[in-house]
């Protein structure tokens, strides 16, 4: 059929691109994770079996990074969703007549992650950071010098991630609220529901699918966090903010140990897949593709 052939022709560029620059690198990456491959020692390249994974299993530096990734993930996902949901509901209540005001809340989304890191590093600078000065003026010595303490550094990279990704949550929930039919809102008003009742018994249940999607997107995003941490703390002080992504980056691009870096990437990928399946099963997230 001629029509079907035209359709095939239209879909084939995507298939070719997906195969060449997605499936192929993925397979190479998996293969690399089973090899001893350090670019600076080419004569030692060999098939290594599960050697890299065994090394990871025994390496305390990896487990430290892994637990940091989990802590980072839990805080950033929980808090960004809590704050974002609250802002979205309040905006829907109070500012539904001002779309441009809603747009202002989304502005941080467009900022380059590297620039986000630069902004906060500048604001939190110990000598001339505006935020350090402001926080000290109100009696909170948590800027500047505190950033050089392990706990302070972790605190701030989490805060920055929340700052950066909450607008995404506001956008998703805003879209969810917008798609609640006006008939339902009007009906609840006629029935005399208070604002709280309406939120609790109508909006929140109707937003459940959105919550699932948001949780999924934020979890994957939280596991991927890299650029901002690299710029703000470079994984420091010491290794206090060295999450798995940073460790993989160090091994791959500073020690040129491609095998171990790939293995770390695959461990995180499997973790992301497991969490995704869990969400889909437990929360019945509908992931619509086409």
């Amino acid at each position, binding site marked *: 059929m001629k029509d079907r052939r035209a*359709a*095939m*022709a*239209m*879909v084939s560029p*995507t298939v070719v*691109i997906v195969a060449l*620059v*997605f499936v*192929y*690198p*993925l397979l*190479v*990456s998996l293969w690399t994770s089973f090899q001893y491959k350090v670019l600076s020692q080419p004569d030692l390249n060999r098939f290594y079996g599960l050697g890299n994974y065994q090394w990871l299993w025994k390496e305390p530096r990896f487990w430290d990074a892994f637990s940091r990734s989990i802590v980072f993930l839990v805080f950033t996902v929980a808090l960004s969703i809590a704050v974002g949901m609250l802002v979205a509901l*309040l905006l829907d*209540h*109070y*500012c539904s*007549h001002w779309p441009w005001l*809603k*747009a*202002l*809340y*989304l*502005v941080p989304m*467009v900022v380059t*992650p*590297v*620039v*986000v890191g*630069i*902004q906060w590093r*500048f*604001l939190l*600078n110990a000598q*001339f950071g505006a935020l350090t000065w402001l926080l000290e003026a109100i009696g909170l010595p948590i800027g500047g010098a505190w950033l050089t303490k392990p706990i302070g550094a972790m605190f701030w990279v989490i805060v920055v991630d929340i700052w950066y990704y909450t607008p995404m949550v506001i956008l*998703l929930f*805003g*879209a969810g609220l917008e*798609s609640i039919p006006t008939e339902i809102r009007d009906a609840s008003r006629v029935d*005399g529901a208070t*604002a709280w009742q*309406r939120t609790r018994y109508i909006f929140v249940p109707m937003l459940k699918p*959105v919550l699932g*999607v948001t949780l999924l997107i934020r979890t*994957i995003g939280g*596991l*991927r966090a890299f650029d901002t941490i*690299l*710029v703000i703390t470079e994984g420091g002080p010491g290794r206090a903010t060295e999450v798995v992504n940073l460790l993989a*980056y160090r091994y*791959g691009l500073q020690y040129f140990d*491609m095998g171990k*870096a790939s293995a770390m*990437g695959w461990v995180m*990928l499997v973790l992301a897949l497991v969490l995704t399946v869990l969400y889909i099963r437990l929360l019945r997230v*509908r992931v*619509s*593709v*086409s």
Partner: protein
Amino acid sequence: MSRAEEQPRDGFPGAGSAPWIGRLGWLRPSAILGFAFLGAYLLISLFPIYWIVISSIKTRVDTLAMPPVWVFRPTINAYLRVFVFENYGRYFFNTAVIAASTTAISLAVGSMAAYVMDRYRFRFSDLIAYSLLSTRMIFPIVYAIPLFLLFRDLNLLDTHLGLIIAYTTFSLPYAVWIMSGFFAAVPREIDEAAMVDGCSRFGAFCRVILPLTAPGLAAATIFILLLSWNEFLFALVLAGGGKAKTLPVAAAQLIGQREIQWNELCAVSTATILPLLIFFSLVHKYLLRGMIAGAVK
């Protein structure tokens, strides 16, 4: 106060169809608390951006003044230093070319695929759909390394083309994902009518269907332009040192230096985000629409 007493029973502003300004509902404690929270959040949300923009037009001394200087004489010296006397104009150009090409290619290729996948069912269409979805899950480092090894063999390191190819891998899924929601909303009868009138399938797609999904194209453009303009890890790995270096990489490398020139860094950062801020202010309404059609169905 007579207006305030006429409020509907649920009482919060904006509840009725009339604008809330006409009432005095916002004097209620709950509303004051709500507005205070929204205001405080907005302040925290925008201040870091404001501060870096404003610091870029200060003198070097004012940038580092303590306590911070709020009123000052603006100067463009920092911009002159980075864009005239150093190479940052070139990096800006690289970023723009790579982001624009990636967006154009992903949209052209992706919208065709999304359209066909919505209208037909192939043996492999589920496979394509799921592999597209899973690209959003894979860590950049996982395929940055193989791409580095591959591009090294193909002499694509430090080239615009290499980065465009690499960026297309993660942009294409977004294009397919966003556009498929919009194509699903266009009734099939429209295709059929166009084809009865003598269009081929491809002609019907180009002349009739695609114009109908213009808001979807706008939404996809925003997402992909942002992704490819802001991308860091691929740019660092595949073109970190050479002639195709992009602004995010250049900015991050500035911070790696021993003594950070904050004034210049603020100027580079502002130049990196300003086009995005302007673009966003023009098209922000499509962002919400794209979300409604795509993610939140």
